[in-house]
């Protein structure tokens, strides 16, 4: 394959952070996925019940693209970005960048990534990949969800980059243009930790952060009145597991990834307190995983009576309590 031979492909837990880590590591800036996520204050919670979504849902991380933007700002690195109205111009630009020997990050619709088996592929407009070369009509793809470097036909890549709908990629490309070798992590870490805690505790919106977890717990009890039938209800309850565990979260709705960040941050800061906080969010993650397990089980068995939903709601409410205590303590560390 015709691509930058020095490029090291690795699997990562999440596509956005994984793509970013790969791009930075391959540009010579060594950083871990957990550090990228933590420095970008990616940990989050939001209960979303708006017309944009056909049914209430929730997020467990900052919105797609925010990790990249925040990391760039925090580390003072320049990530050159492009969006295109004209697909042909957007494909030509990609070819030009590859010809210059650049590895390029791209936003795509996951559905067109045909190196994954068909049963895995669903439409998701915010999948990120790295494009590392071109061979004939095929692009050479490093996808952090795939074990190997893969090939993707140019017509499929074009469809994937210009898929329509919510969060459409619009041909989005990016690459690191300027790195900052003088990053003082000891100065940055306290700021990013405070920001994450503020996001979880102090944003003045009832559906965001810890307040969002409580809202989720309350509103879950009304879902039975919003669903079409038991199949729909089962699907929505199983989706709780999918959102917490399966969408590249690193497990437990990114709580394990944030725990890994606090552990690494503790080593850098020589702080036993951060190490303890890492253990605490890891345990909170274990409880989110139990929620995933419970939701998957009752959803699969169609065991969705009022008592079961109340039980699930109570488990989520307790997570609100646990995260409120955790982020309040975390905010006071620095």
């Amino acid at each position, binding site marked *: 394959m015709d691509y930058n031979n020095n490029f090291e492909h690795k*699997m*990562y*837990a999440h596509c956005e952070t994984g793509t970013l880590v790969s791009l930075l590591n391959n540009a010579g800036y060594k950083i871990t*996925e*957990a550090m990228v996520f933590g420095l970008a204050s990616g940990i989050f919670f939001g209960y979303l019940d708006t017309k944009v979504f056909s049914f209430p849902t929730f997020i467990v991380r900052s919105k797609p693209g925010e990790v990249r933007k925040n990391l760039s700002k925090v580390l003072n690195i320049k990530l050159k970005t492009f969006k295109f109205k004209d697909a042909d111009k957007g494909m030509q630009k990609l070819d030009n960048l590859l010809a210059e020997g650049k590895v390029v990050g791209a936003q795509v619709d996951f559905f067109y990534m045909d190196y994954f*088996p068909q*049963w*895995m592929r669903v439409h998701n407009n915010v999948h990120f990949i790295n494009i590392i070369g071109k061979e004939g009509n095929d692009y050479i793809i490093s996808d*952090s*969800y795939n*074990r190997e470097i893969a090939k993707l036909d140019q017509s499929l890549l074009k469809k994937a980059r210009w898929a329509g709908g919510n969060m459409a990629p619009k041909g989005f490309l990016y690459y690191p243009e300027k790195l900052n070798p003088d990053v003082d992590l000891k100065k940055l870490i306290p700021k990013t930790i405070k920001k994450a805690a503020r996001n979880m505790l102090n944003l003045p919106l009832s559906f965001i952060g810890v307040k969002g977890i409580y809202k989720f717990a309350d509103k879950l009890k009304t879902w039975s009145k919003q669903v079409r039938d038991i199949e729909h209800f089962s699907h929505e309850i*199983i989706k709780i*597991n*999918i959102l917490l*565990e*399966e969408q590249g*979260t*690193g*497990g*437990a709705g990114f709580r*394990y*990834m944030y*725990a*890994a960040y606090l552990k690494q941050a503790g080593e850098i800061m020589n702080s036993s307190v951060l190490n303890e906080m890492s253990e605490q969010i*890891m345990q909170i*993650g*274990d409880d989110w*995983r*139990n929620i*995933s*397990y419970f939701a*998957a*089980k009752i*959803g*699969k068995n169609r065991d969705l009576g009022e008592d079961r939903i109340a039980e699930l709601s109570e488990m989520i409410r307790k997570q609100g309590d646990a995260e409120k205590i955790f982020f309040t303590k975390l905010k006071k560390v620095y």
Partner: protein
Amino acid sequence: MTKNNNELTLEIAQLLIDSLNITHVEAKDVNITTPLFSEENELELDSVDAIEIVVAIQRAYGIRINSELPTREILNSIQSIADFLIKENATEKVA
């Protein structure tokens, strides 16, 4: 006594069968390298089963599967689960 790879993979296959109440196949007949969530796998799993497998392994071997290594890589096949347990020095059941 340390288990060899055959013993460990057979044990994992049996754990999956028991925890997911699978009745149509025996542990010895499960291919240990076929991707777990592919149509070719004898266990006929769907993606909802992933969390049950994660929890079953965690409980049985007393370990935590978290983001240090992507879960999807660990759960790729019975062999990859065995490789993970060997790497974590957690091949003995605790429950």
